[in-house]
């Protein structure tokens, strides 16, 4: 087992991911949700699956998955969650 490679990939991804969109999303969703555990599970599975697909598919991943459309869908999803939070607490 190449521990140096393991450490290198850990540190690289860790530094790339600190303060990134998905960590901010984990902070936001984990704070607002009644189920921080569900948020943790959901984001972990999503992130690991995304990087797994990256390793498996290599460069071909961009060809069969329209990245911009997926990101736009995610953006809409976050916007809906934000609006729902404001909306629901106002009408309460």
């Amino acid at each position, binding site marked *: 087992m190449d521990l140096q490679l393991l450490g290198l990939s850990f540190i690289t991804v860790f530094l790339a991911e600190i303060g990134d969109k998905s960590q901010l999303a*984990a902070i936001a969703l984990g704070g607002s949700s009644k189920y921080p555990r569900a*948020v943790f599970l959901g984001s972990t599975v999503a992130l690991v*699956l995304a*990087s797994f*697909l990256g390793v498996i598919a290599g460069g071909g*991943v961009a060809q069969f998955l329209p990245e911009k459309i997926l990101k736009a869908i995610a*953006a809409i999803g976050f916007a809906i969650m*934000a609006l729902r939070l404001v909306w629901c*607490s106002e009408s309460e």
Partner: protein
Amino acid sequence: METANLKSIPSEEKFQDTANKVIRHGEPSSPSLTVQPSQSHKTLELQSSLKWSFWTVFSSTFITIFFAEMGDKTQLVTLLMSAESQSPGIVFLGAAMALISTSLLGVIIGYWLSKKLSPKTLDLTVAILLLFITGWLMSDVIC
């Protein structure tokens, strides 16, 4: 007991509201402890709607973060590193551990913040943060 649960579906929203209030002040994993014993029927309905809600939280988190991460720099870093090295398995293992720790850190920070802020301030802060992420993602899409 099961049929009682099924019948409660139309009023689920109402119980969801009650559940929100109970949870906000109590332990997230054991809402039934805060309910009086005389309300045991309600407790069952509460639990059924809570169970549904756990998976809603899970799936909405999963879908948004998965879609946001596709083609993002983390995925590209993993992709490049595994392509360069002879052992993609180790790269994936390191990346997976890093991703688990960052999301655990994020959720812990969020949970800690939720204890510090009042519910109203928290909702507003989270909404602004989510809209910020939306803007960030949209700038990725447009540029």
